[in-house]
């Protein structure tokens, strides 16, 4: 749920990065944190296990500047990707305004992507939200592995697997090098802001 403070003219919007474990959700936020440090006033919060896996969520508040006199604060969250953590994934999804689904483009991860997307669909239903209505951007992460000879699915296959019904904007990306990470972020921010505006006006 976005929140609008009319006195201080602040709009808070919640964007969640969702996807299978070790897919690069946290890496997306880490890249954003490094690249846009001017727009980030506080430190990134990461709740991790000892093995550096996300335990609960990462949190990164991102200042977008002013739109129509309102200061726009984008709250970026990730969920833990591991299958066993669905209870915490659901908690993080509470009040979500926009979603980035970070798919792992490696061939070996094909089934995990589909499962994770299906679970997102179910989890959103729990909050009476629909995956077909909420602003969503899909990112096919790790395409850089192609150059290292690791089997990566062609984008057409990924699109067919994950985006044939949703038909949402999608990007090939590499969270490690930052390729298309800002583009993904820009796209989800603009779709989310448009959707929040529509709901309000």
């Amino acid at each position, binding site marked *: *749920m*976005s*929140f*609008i*403070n*009319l*006195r201080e003219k602040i709009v*808070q919007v*919640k964007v969640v990065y969702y996807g299978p474990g070790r897919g690069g959700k946290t890496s997306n936020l880490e890249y954003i944190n490094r690249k846009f440090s001017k727009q980030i006033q*506080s*430190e990134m*919060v990461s*709740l991790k296990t000892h093995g550096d896996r996300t335990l*609960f*969520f990462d*949190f990164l*508040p991102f200042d977008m500047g002013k739109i129509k006199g309102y200061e726009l*604060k984008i*709250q970026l*969250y990730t969920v833990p990707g591991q299958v066993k953590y669905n*209870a*915490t994934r659901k*908690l*993080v999804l*509470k*009040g*979500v305004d926009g979603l980035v689904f970070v798919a792992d483009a490696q061939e070996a991860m094909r089934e995990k992507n589909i499962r994770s997307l299906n679970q997102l669909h179910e989890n959103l239903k729990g909050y*009476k*939200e629909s995956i077909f209505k909420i602003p969503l951007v899909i990112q096919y992460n790790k395409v850089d592995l192609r150059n290292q000879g690791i089997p990566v699915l062609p984008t057409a296959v990924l699109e067919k697997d994950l985006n044939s019904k949703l038909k949402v904007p999608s990007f090939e990306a590499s969270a490690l090098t930052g390729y298309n990470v800002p583009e993904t972020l820009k796209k989800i921010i603009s779709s989310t802001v448009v959707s*929040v505006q529509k*709901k*309000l006006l």
Partner: protein
Amino acid sequence: MNYGVVSQEQLEKIDEILSEQLIKIGVDCVIIIDMAGNIITAKDNGTSKYDVYSFAALAAGNFATVDAMAKLVGEQEFSLLFHKGTDCNIHFSKIDEELLLITMFGKHISLGFLRLNVVKALEQIRKLWAGK
């Protein structure tokens, strides 16, 4: 989905309640957040500087986790959620299904006294919210 919009007038009244009931008795910082981790309002004694945005995200997660644990053991909720430190303590209370009141206070205030004042503040905020 409901979108949270609070008028300037409501916010001013809420801030007044928080100042009167909590800041005045020596509380360092009071924050009202929603369960999604957004800040509704934050008020402090002028000397404490907390990163309230990160705090709100963590607090909402913390509260949601404890709430889920309560349900696992068959409780509706755990009504007292309180963290005690050497110099700083944090007290959480639910205003309604969507809102949380978080109070940070030092060692000079007893928990009992704080809870009494929190209850008064909650009653007044709920009344105000009901008239929204």
